[in-house]
């Protein structure tokens, strides 16, 4: 049942590193993370890897497997031929700490810039929302923050200089989630464009493709968000209406 697989794993720290070859036992039903764990337990005690739940629920074990951004715990070994070399490298968009572990603090910094949920004057226990209305944002709240979408997005993948002005699909989707939240009263349309870089997105859907939760990030979050921004900024009727005072603009929420 079991066989010996060829693995190439990136080993090294912030300074330098190399792909190291291993031959390691694989048993039926295993995933890439099992094999990485076997390496740790046998020949590479110090092999650094992040993981928690091993069930695709926590989003910790993100890496690139044969160049493709994936969760190691959700990549079954049966998807590779037995004689195929499996190459595991850290996410490319974030600086390497050690081996397969990267510094993902960029994501936490971007999260802090998005103005939080604002429920207005409604008291706890008094919220009333319909299922059909909560479902739109619920899809985005399935996000397990594996950051594979941000890792994949070409706006920052090879463009360090864009990181300052671009929050990545994950946090543009967070903006969309709050904008579509039936009980939220803030308006983040202006800052989505000006501060979080929504305009950089040219809807190539790479983020959607790598999302392990199968969230339709581009179609359901980013494109509708772009439409909302257009409606807010460029609709001539809205512009005219607000000039002559018959359309009241919502108060804009500044970056947090």
């Amino acid at each position, binding site marked *: 049942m079991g066989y010996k697989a060829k693995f190439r794993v990136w080993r090294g720290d912030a300074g330098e590193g190399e792909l190291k070859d291993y031959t390691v036992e694989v048993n039926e*039903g295993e995933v890439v993370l099992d094999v990485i764990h076997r390496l*740790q337990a046998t020949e590479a005690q110090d092999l*650094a890897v992040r993981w928690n739940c*091993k*069930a695709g629920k926590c989003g910790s074990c993100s890496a690139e497997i044969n160049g493709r951004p994936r969760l190691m715990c959700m990549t079954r070994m049966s998807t590779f031929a037995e004689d195929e070399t499996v190459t595991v490298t850290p996410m490319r968009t974030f600086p390497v700490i050690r081996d397969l572990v990267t510094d993902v603090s960029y994501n936490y910094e971007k999260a802090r810039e998005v*103005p939080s949920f604002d429920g207005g004057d409604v*008291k706890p226990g008094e*919220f009333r929302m319909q*299922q059909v209305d909560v479902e739109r944002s619920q899809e985005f709240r*399935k996000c397990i923050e594996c950051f594979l979408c941000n890792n994949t997005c070409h706006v920052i993948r090879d463009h360090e200089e864009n990181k300052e002005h671009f929050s990545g699909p994950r946090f543009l989707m967070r903006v969309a989630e709050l904008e579509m939240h039936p009980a939220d009263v803030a308006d983040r349309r202006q800052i989505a464009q000006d501060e979080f870089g929504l305009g950089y997105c040219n809807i190539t859907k790479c983020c959607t493709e790598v999302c392990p939760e199968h969230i339709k990030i581009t179609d359901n979050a980013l494109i509708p968000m772009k439409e909302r921004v257009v409606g807010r900024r460029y609709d001539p009727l809205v512009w005219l209406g607000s000039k002559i005072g018959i359309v009241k603009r919502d108060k804009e929420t500044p970056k947090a």
Partner: protein
Amino acid sequence: MTDIERLQYDVVVIGAGGAGLRAAIEARLQGKKTAIISKSLFGKAHTVMAEGGAAAAMGNANPNDNWQVHYRDTMRGGKFLNNWRMAELHAKEAPERIWELEAWGALFDRTKDGKISQRNFGGHEYPRLAHVGDRTGLELIRTCQQKIVALQQEDHKEFGDYDARLRVFAETTVTRLLKDEQGRICGAFGYIRETGKFVVFEAPAVVLATGGIGKSFKVTSNSWEYTGDGHALALLAGASLINMEFVQFHPTGMVWPPSVKGILVTESVRGDGGVLKNSDDKRFMFEYIPEVFKDKYATTEEEADGWYEDPDNNRRPPELLPRDEVARAINSEVKAGRGSPHGGVFLDIASRLKPEQIIKRLPSMHHQFKELADVDITAEPMEVGPTCHYVMGGVEVDPDTAAALVPGLFAAGEVSGGMHGSNRLGGNSLSDLLVFGRRAGLGASEYASATTVSVPESEIEAAMAEALEPYEREAGENPYTVHQELQQTMNDLVGIIRREDELEQAIEALGKLRERVQNVAVAPSAGASPKEGQGPAYHPGWHLALDLRNMMIVSECVARAALERQESRGGHTRDDYPKMSADWRKVNLVCRVRDGVVELKRQDMEPMREDLLSLFELDELQKYLTEGELPAEEKN
């Protein structure tokens, strides 16, 4: 001595799951400078694995529900061994805690009239679990995480610094609690995973919210963090643990393929109509309804199936018995040779709901089986079996303030003991986290206001020496090997069904393992030279070597308490003492550590307050209590 970073806080919360985050939010709301120490990245805690929901008697789905009914269900689920005051506070405060999450942005599934929807679960009389599909834990953790960010944004506005009053230390592990000359808590010592550097938190109040102990067992639904850190830290600081013999084996974990063995299959599958069958295609749970629950569960398939639509005129399906009952039943079926091909039983939802309903209500189960086992649960049954899921036992605390017996130490969530008695009901964990997380945050804040401390140098030196030991040891055993043997021992000898001779064998084996744990060695990192006064950067072998101490202590507590308790109750089943005993119900087993040795003593439980006792019928109380404990006016 090397320069170790020292940081001053009012309240330090160890653990960043639901309980830890809720405690930290409360401490910050009380104006305390608060640190959250997270073993993983922020937002990754084990709470994300909780699927079914959070139990709270809001009465949205059935208006007859109220805190008294919830209280009764909780006590029954725990077989009356629960700390009744905790169960009372929990039942009363859970609805407020859920509503508060909604005001922080949580999006629960809705009822038709726009309220929070509530679902059925094992042991709960009415539909009571607030939920989001089957990913409720993720919603809870994300909401608390985002509330913390919101508070940090307020601080940023006021002080120009997000971390001014509430800071998260991600990937940081505490290895020792620090105490001053007066025997009070004065801080915590740990290492930062990324760099291997040590850090000292100086604080008068420490809240433990470290979760459970599942990683001491081979088959478990728990993540790598669940190494009993808080349990062990508390013991080593002089606090006590109660109820450690009660370990919940969730009846439905995945059994195939081997690499996912133990991963949880949510109870919602049964709450939404799923049934358990053996290899004869028989719904076997009808054979396993215990005496104490005889009048509450259906005896025929017709009645059981009628309950989903008409719960007022039908009794509940026995698949929804409390978890301990279902786990034992599955165990018996497998032992009797009526199991599934991979040593479990069948859990069938495919023949009960339409495919689109299954995908809507159980999306992550559908996803999990499809991706990990290549099984389509809308078309075929799942194979499931018991998996170590939760420890009822934990730090002995004051119910109202969450204070442990050591001044300055508090505990909330799974690491605390008492709330769930001998068996926890599904859904009561997420609400427990919120209710007692908040109370611990309050208790710690109040205590911290009146206390100042300083950390003695000797405490730091001792903690540092201990943490460096496995790294500095020249030769020794591989920590992974020792860990695997510990897991095997606990699984085989202190598992779901226990016997005196096996428990004695376990204690002997653990004694030998303890010596081996003290002798594990960690190979230095490839390409990096060891630095004076710090550990290696991001070195999993070193992390495991340090976690092993905790798993070892906790395993000894479980085994010793399991040997002592000569009855079967909830999460403690003794093959040689199969009956529940009213005399044993009055007794808590308390573990402490003295000079490195686990000590066990019996401690009488406080009798239940009379008004709470009066919520039960006499004939029910008679099943659990001794003659002397029954209400006075009813005794003749």
